[in-house]
Structures are given as structure tokens and as C-alpha cells.
């Protein structure tokens, strides 16, 4: 009898299509197992099937040698199987502490033990290195913070099988390092861990074993020792990827200039973005990058300072004004800010561009579909057709829809907030290629990313934020991860875990 969880022949179907087909996977105690694959390969679906969220059409689960069937997430949790979802799923109206314990309150009879709840929450958050007040409300927290609340919630269970679905995606290296410490501790305690991620260097940094999914089927299972990144990428995408190197571009006119811009979450921002330039904005979670992007896009108002666009002073009162001025923002929180989940791909991707796509105010279905199909093809969107609801897409494919929506508007200044969160390597290189192309055509790009290799890879210039200020501006071609992390944390030696 092996300790751990064994899934055999798992098949999951939606509307008659098998999105996961006959996958076997074995999560051994004391081992970290990585699950990789392209967007839409079926990773999240498999994870959900294991954790009782979906009921697989076929297949069986065995926990510590005993056959089990989970009818809902509750039963899985009770059996010791915990899943941290790809998108943080939280209760905005409730406090952090309650978010952690909702569904399994610490109780005494029917009553909630509030003081114990607060104390336990504080412990959990500290163990993750998160400085959040357990009594504060969750509404208004960033995606990363909510991700950590969800993580704390999972950790409050005595689970023996842990599934982390792209938990590192919104996190910066410092938080990732802390998360890895937690994972290693769990592994050493004899838990079985499954991590889903698109960052292969993370896989090789922490995992013991790798399973590769492609189109819902398992194509390989390898130990880390006997494999390498290139091989895994090849297995995932089924083709060779050419990773282009960064090449210096000639920057044009100054497009965006801010002088002493202050607002909620950021202060004294002096930033310049030129036409044809990609400026990376790095920093830790909570450094205020998203807040800055929001202010530039007119969601919030700066409280002081000036903002110039093509030399003209502008007041961006609303996203609508921003759009008219030629500024677009790909927001960080795609579920709430980027997408109309129940609506179709076509509706979503053309939403911001619709008025220009359909002259005279009448919907022009032909134009809408032509434009959507163009981008769907360009991004290799995995979908049945463009009338499919966005809610049915995998996380990465949803991100592609959001990107398509904003690229359609052909902005002068494109602000990207975590543009490749949850996007697979293949699509990511595609996105990078597109961003570079756009810059080549003269677009100014301001890119917020917690993915340092991405920042280094793409940026002509890198601005680093810490506690709401820009603390360093580095040359993209010469900067290193260490330099960025040093500026972001203000201390030496902070680096990838």
C-alpha cells in the first residue's frame, strides 16, 4: 500500500467533449508533483476532479490505498484533500479571518469561537509571511493578497493532499520564496503535493516529479532529475519554441510623462514612457503598481501631480476618457475587471472596441466575428467557437480574451497589469512577440509584471516600485534579477527561493 492519492482513468466532459481523457496520476506522500501543460490542457479540471469540485465521468480515486468518491469539496476536505484555486475565491464582505475559516469555523457547539478564529488566522498569515490584519475586510485587497488569504484558508485544514493551482502566478519572488518554504514543510511532514504552474524554473526549483498534459491527455511523467526545461516545453506544446532574445529598439518621442503624481497607494511618481518603448514596472505585492496603473487609466483620480500625454497636460477622469486619449489597461483581476463571464468570447473581446467596430450604432455581426476570429487565431485560443461563454474557458485562455479586447482598441499607450498571469509558455512567447511587435510599430507599453524573467526579457527600461514610490530605474538590457529584487525590497540578498 502506498501512502498518498492515486487517480486512475480520470475523464471529465463538458457538453460531450472530454477535456480530460483517461488521466492516471499518483501523488505520493513526501513528494511534490508538478502538473504542466498548455492553457486549456485540462490541469485545473483534473485538479478540481480530484478535490471533489467536478465529478469525473469516468475514473476512480484512491486515498492511501482505499477507494474514495467525493461528491463535493466538503467531502474532499474532510478526507484531507485541499485545493487552492487558480482564481482566488473569497467572500468580499467578510473579514480576512472569516474568509480563512468560512465553511469550517472553529466552533463550540453551534457557536463560533471568534477569539480563537482571530488568533489562529494571525498565526496562519504570519507563517505565510503576510502582513494582513485578520479583522480587516477582504473587499479591496489585491489579487495576490486574496490568493494568500485563500492559501491561509487551505492551510487551516489538516490536509494530507495539497493541490496548488497556479498559486504562484500573482506573486512576486519574495512571496514565492515564502510559499516554497511552506510547501517544503508540508512535504517534509509527509503530505502529497500537486502544483500546477506555467513557470518551469519553479518546477525545477521545487518539484520532484512532473506530469505533462496535452489536450486532456497525459503525455509524459518524468522525475525532475531525468528531465530538463526544453524537453518539458517540447512535450507541452508539441513543437519547438524559438525564444527570441531581447533586442534594443530606438525609442521615439515621449508619450507619457508624469511629474510628482500622487494618489491612493502611490506617491511622487516621475515616469516617462516613449513611443516604441516597453517600460517594465517591477515591485513586490502591494508596492502600488496596480494603483498607479488604475490612476493612469482614470479609474481613480490622482490627488496631486501632473500627467502629460504627447506633451499635452491631461486629466483622465474615467476609463472612457482614457480610451479616447488612446490609453488602454489590461487589468490584473480578469474575473471582475476584465471579463463578462457569462457572455461569449465575441462579446467580450469586442466590448471596448464595439462602438468603432459598428458604425451607426447597429451591431455589425460580420465585423464582430471577423475581428474576434482574427485575434482568436493569433492567440491560438482554445475554444469551441467564438460564441462560447468565457466562463467555460481555462484561465489562460480567458487572459487571452482580455488581451485581445485591449489590443483591438489600438492604443497609443498600452498598460499591462500582469499580462501573462496564467498564460502558458507557448502563448506567453506569442504574447511577448505581439507586445514587441506593437512597440516596434510605435506603441508605448507600460508593463507591470511579477514575473521577473518576463520583465527582464521584454523591457527596454525597468522602473522598480517600493511602498508607493519609484525607487530605481534600470536599463532593461543590463539589469539583473538581483538588482531588481534589491531595489524592490531595499535589502541585499533577497532572491528567488
Amino acid at each position, binding site marked *: 500500500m502506498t501512502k498518498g492519492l492515486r487517480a486512475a482513468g480520470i475523464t471529465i466532459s463538458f457538453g460531450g467533449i472530454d477535456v480530460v481523457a483517461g488521466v492516471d496520476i499518483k501523488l505520493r506522500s513526501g513528494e511534490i508533483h508538478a502538473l504542466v501543460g498548455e492553457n486549456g490542457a485540462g490541469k485545473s479540471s483534473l485538479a478540481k476532479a480530484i478535490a471533489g469540485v467536478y465529478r469525473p465521468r469516468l475514473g476512480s480515486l484512491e486515498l492511501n490505498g482505499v477507494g474514495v468518491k467525493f461528491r463535493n469539496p466538503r467531502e474532499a476536505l474532510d478526507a484531507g484533500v485541499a485545493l487552492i484555486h487558480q482564481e482566488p475565491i473569497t467572500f468580499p464582505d*467578510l473579514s480576512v479571518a*472569516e474568509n480563512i475559516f*468560512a*465553511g469550517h469555523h472553529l466552533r463550540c457547539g453551534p*457557536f463560533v469561537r471568534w477569539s480563537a478564529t482571530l488568533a489562529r488566522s494571525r498565526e496562519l498569515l504570519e507563517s505565510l509571511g503576510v502582513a494582513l490584519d485578520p479583522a480587516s475586510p477582504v473587499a479591496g485587497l489585491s489579487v495576490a493578497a486574496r490568493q494568500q488569504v485563500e492559501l491561509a484558508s487551505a492551510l487551516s485544514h489538516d490536509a494530507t493532499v495539497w493541490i496548488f493551482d497556479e498559486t504562484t502566478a500573482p506573486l512576486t519572488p519574495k512571496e514565492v520564496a515564502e510559499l516554497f518554504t511552506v510547501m517544503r514543510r508540508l512535504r517534509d511532514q509527509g503530505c502529497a503535493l500537486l502544483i500546477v504552474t506555467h513557470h518551469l524554473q519553479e518546477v525545477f526549483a521545487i518539484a520532484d516529479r512532473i506530469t505533462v498534459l496535452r489536450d486532456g491527455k497525459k503525455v509524459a511523467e518524468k522525475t525532475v532529475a531525468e528531465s530538463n526545461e526544453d524537453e518539458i516545453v517540447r512535450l507541452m506544446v508539441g513543437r519547438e519554441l524559438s525564444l527570441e532574445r531581447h533586442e534594443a529598439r530606438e525609442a521615439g518621442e515621449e508619450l507619457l510623462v508624469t511629474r510628482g503624481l500622487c494618489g491612493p497607494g502611490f506617491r511622487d511618481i516621475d515616469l516617462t514612457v516613449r513611443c516604441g518603448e516597453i517600460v517594465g514596472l517591477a515591485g513586490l505585492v502591494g508596492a502600488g503598481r496596480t494603483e498607479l496603473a488604475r490612476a493612469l487609466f482614470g479609474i481613480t483620480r490622482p490627488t496631486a501631480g501632473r500627467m502629460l500625454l504627447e506633451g499635452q497636460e491631461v486629466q483622465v477622469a474615467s476609463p472612457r476618457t482614457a480610451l479616447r486619449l488612446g490609453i488602454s489597461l489590461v487589468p490584473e483581476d480578469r474575473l471582475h475587471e476584465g471579463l463578462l463571464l457569462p457572455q461569449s468570447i465575441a462579446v467580450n473581446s469586442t466590448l471596448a472596441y464595439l462602438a468603432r467596430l459598428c458604425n451607426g450604432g447597429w451591431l455589425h455581426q460580420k465585423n464582430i466575428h471577423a475581428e474576434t476570429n482574427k485575434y482568436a487565431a493569433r492567440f491560438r485560443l482554445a475554444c469551441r467557437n467564438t460564441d462560447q461563454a468565457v466562463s467555460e474557458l481555462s484561465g489562460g485562455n480567458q487572459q487571452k480574451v482580455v488581451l485581445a479586447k485591449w489590443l483591438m482598441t489600438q492604443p497609443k499607450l498600452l498598460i499591462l497589469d500582469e499580462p501573462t498571469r496564467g498564460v502558458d509558455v507557448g502563448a506567453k512567447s506569442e504574447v511577448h512577440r505581439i507586445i514587441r511587435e506593437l512597440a516596434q510599430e510605435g506603441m508605448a507599453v507600460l508593463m507591470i509584471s511579477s514575473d521577473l524573467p518576463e520583465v527582464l526579457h521584454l523591457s527596454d527600461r525597468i522602473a522598480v516600485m517600493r511602498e508607493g514610490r519609484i525607487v530605481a530605474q534600470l536599463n532593461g538590457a543590463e539589469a539583473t534579477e538581483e538588482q531588481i529584487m534589491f531595489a524592490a525590497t531595499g535589502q541585499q540578498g533577497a532572491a528567488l527561493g
Partner: protein
Amino acid sequence: MGKREGIAFGFLVLLSGVAGLKEPRLFQPQSIESVLLWMPLITVVAMGQLLVILTGGIDLSIGSILGFSGIGVGLVLKANPHLPLPIVFLAGLAIGLALGAFNAAVIVWGKISPLIVTIGTLAAFRGLTFILSKGDQIDSSMIPDSLTVLAHSGITIAHVTLSWLLILALTIALITFATLGFTTFGRNVFALGSNADAARLRGISSGSVQFAVYAICGALAGLAGVMYASRFGFVNPGSAGSSFELTVIAAVAIGGTKLTGGSGSVLGVLLGCLLLSCINVFLSLLGIDANYQMLTYGLVILIAILTDAAARRGKA
């Protein structure tokens, strides 16, 4: 007391102050009793409605449940005039519970939006009330004094009588407060209303929580039916509880409850009930021309909403 409750309270004090300037008799025990007599019915039903709205639902059928229970209990009393009071109240509670459970069953098992279900039962229960009563009303002679006496006797503090009905209502409010704040069921109610998907993933059985809130809401409306008989001494199958739903929802909403669910408080709703009671009693005491009363009522409600919004903005 949270910020929003504070604002609601402030508004209430201001309103009473302004009205009191015009009519000093407003602060006489008699006037205060008048306000306090307005409270019990609306408070009891509002507590049920609060639970429902916190889960993100709504129950429009409460007025009809109130009427049905009033008639039902009246018929029981007509047959057995000497029934002990606790049984009378339990009967009302049980009738309401049954109707509420019907709502709940259709909403949970039929997976139909609560709005549609309760618009339907709003009509259907009223129709059943007429059928049950055969079109006759429950006259005062069928309601024993022991029941009506509860509406005007109770504990007297400083010449103001807190009627037994009010005490019952406040007790129910207190129980609701404790349930919402300190029990896992109460917290699940908030969780469900805040994010139903998340609640499901956290293993909270949304079906049983929903079932419970609609059943409880019905039960409390049923109890209010008995209180109605006690307060007014007669029950008409057509008018008992008719249009009550809007008054109750207004009280819940004015009390700062988020109508999409997940946020709200018992204290806030109590203040909402008190505010509505005050407005109604003041309208009469200030002798406002009957033709201007509805306009005044609407304006006061709108001002209350605007005050709340302005205060929230100031905070943000």
C-alpha cells in the same frame, strides 16, 4: 455600532428633533407608545427578511403569509376560544413555517429565482387566504381578550409601556442578532450572500442555508399574523399584511443592508424599523394634510437614503 448604524441613528434623532420642535407633544409617553406599537409587527418580519436578503434572496410573500396565518389562527380560535396562548403563537409560527418551507422547497429544489417564487406565492397565498376564510373576516368577537391584551400591556418604564408584543419582537431581534453574529449558521448566511460560488467550494450547503432562511422568514411572518390579530383585534383576509412586503424591505434596506446580500446588521434593521415607525406616527401627530402624507413619506425616505450615501462617500 458601526458607521452606518450611527448615521441612521443620527438621522433618526434629527428627524425627531425637527418634528419635536413643531409638535412638542411628540415626546409624551403616549406618542412614544404609539411609535412602539408600530414596531413589533414590522420588526419581527424584518428579522426574517434580513436573513433572506443577507443570503442574496428576497421574500415578497411575507404579507400574504401574515394574512394566511392571521386567518388560520383566527379560525382555530373561533373553534377553540380557550386555547392557551403559547399554543396560539406556536400555531401561527407553524402555519408560517409551512408556507415558508413551501417557498424554500421551490426555490432550493426547483432552482427558481426567489423573486419569481415569492411573487407567485404573494398572489397564491393571498388567494388561499380568501379560500380558507371563505371571504369572511375574523371579527373581534372571535379573538380572546387574553390575546389582544398583549398589545397594550407589558412592562412600564417611566410612563411608557413596552408592550408584550414589543418585548417579543425585541427578543426575536436579539435571537437573530446572536444567531447571525455568533453561530456557524449565521456566518454561513453571510458567506452565501457574499459569494455563493465560494460558499459552495468551501463546502457550505447553500441549499440547506437557503431552505432555513426562507422557512424562518415564513415562520416569523406567521408569528406576525398572530401579533396582527393581537394588535388590531380583527383579521381581514384581504387587507391583513397586504403591501407589507415593501414596508419591510424598505426597513431592511434603510437599515443599511446590502440588497445583493452579504452585508447588514440587526441593529441597522432595528433602526430602520424605528425610523419607519417614527415617520408614520409623526405624519399623523404633526397633523400633516392627508393629501401630502405620501409625498412627505417619500421625501423622508429619499433623504434618509441620500444621507447614508453621502456619509459613505465621505468615508471613502
